[in-house]
């Protein structure tokens, strides 16, 4: 019998196809996030949510050298909101929201943030430094 997928799993393969995406459920549970583990060899990023976890694979590599210097790492979960308003036109305003999960810490005295930005229903994501 096929093993059931763990709840809360998000997998981004190198082709950027999400097997299952629950990032909208991550945000309300951000207070329950316990830890972040980064595996550079597989370029994976794990966020533990009280025993459940998210996995993001593939895409741009975050160098181990940079991450190994991160002091006092802290998980951040951000809902990024946009309103697009027309100027000199008649289109209706549009609202968007996307979610970012990431880590924040101090590198050589400088506050640094690394985010995986998830958008377009989970089909697109990229690492971003800072917000």
């Amino acid at each position, binding site marked *: 019998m096929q093993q059931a997928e763990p709840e809360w799993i998000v997998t981004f393969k190198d082709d950027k196809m999400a097997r299952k995406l629950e990032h909208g459920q991550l*945000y*309300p549970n*951000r207070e329950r996030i316990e830890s972040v583990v980064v595996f550079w060899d597989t370029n994976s990023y794990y966020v533990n949510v009280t025993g459940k976890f998210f996995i993001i694979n593939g895409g741009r590599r975050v160098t181990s050298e940079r991450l190994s210097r991160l002091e006092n790492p802290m998980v*951040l*979960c*951000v*809902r*990024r*909101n*946009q*309103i*697009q*308003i*027309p*100027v*000199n*036109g*008649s*289109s*209706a*305003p549009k609202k968007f*929201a996307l979610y*970012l999960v990431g880590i924040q810490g101090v590198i050589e005295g400088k506050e640094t943030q690394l985010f995986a930005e998830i958008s377009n229903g989970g089909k697109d994501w990229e690492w971003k430094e*800072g*917000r």
Partner: protein
Amino acid sequence: MSATVEIVETNGPLASAVNTANPVNLNFGSADVTGLVPATYPVTAAANGASYEKWIRLYVASLGTSSNIDNLKIWISDLGGGYVVGEGINTNAVTSGYSAVSYPSGGPIETRSTVAINVIPTSQPAGSNVGIAGALAGAITAAPAYSDWIVLQDICTASTPAGPANQKTITIQWDEQ
């Protein structure tokens, strides 16, 4: 539950100012009203010509389950057909050297703004360019609350051709944590 956030446009003199939540557009014109039709209130092409300023803010009605709203940005995300000759959009938004402005007692003006003096960026700025509580690094941590003012103005010159300007899209972005 995410925060309840609105864009609010303010029109009129300070003593009788009218707030409009979620304006349908930010069309510029020769009247200090929200949601105007540019053809009804055209901006006259002239040396140092200008529309009425637009004064808007982010209004956080409720934080929901969030605890922090920050990283407020504004930029033109779509120039559409681009600016016509002599046209431009200015703002008070900046990523450095920021200082908050106060709503004028007489309300928005139709001459060149003394606060919206920076060209609005046409790509997302790297950092916040609109302040909260007077600082770009500011945050809203209790609701209800407003951001600092965002001032916008469409400008033109004597050489700006008659007729409608191209539609553009302004994006306002903020983060919730």
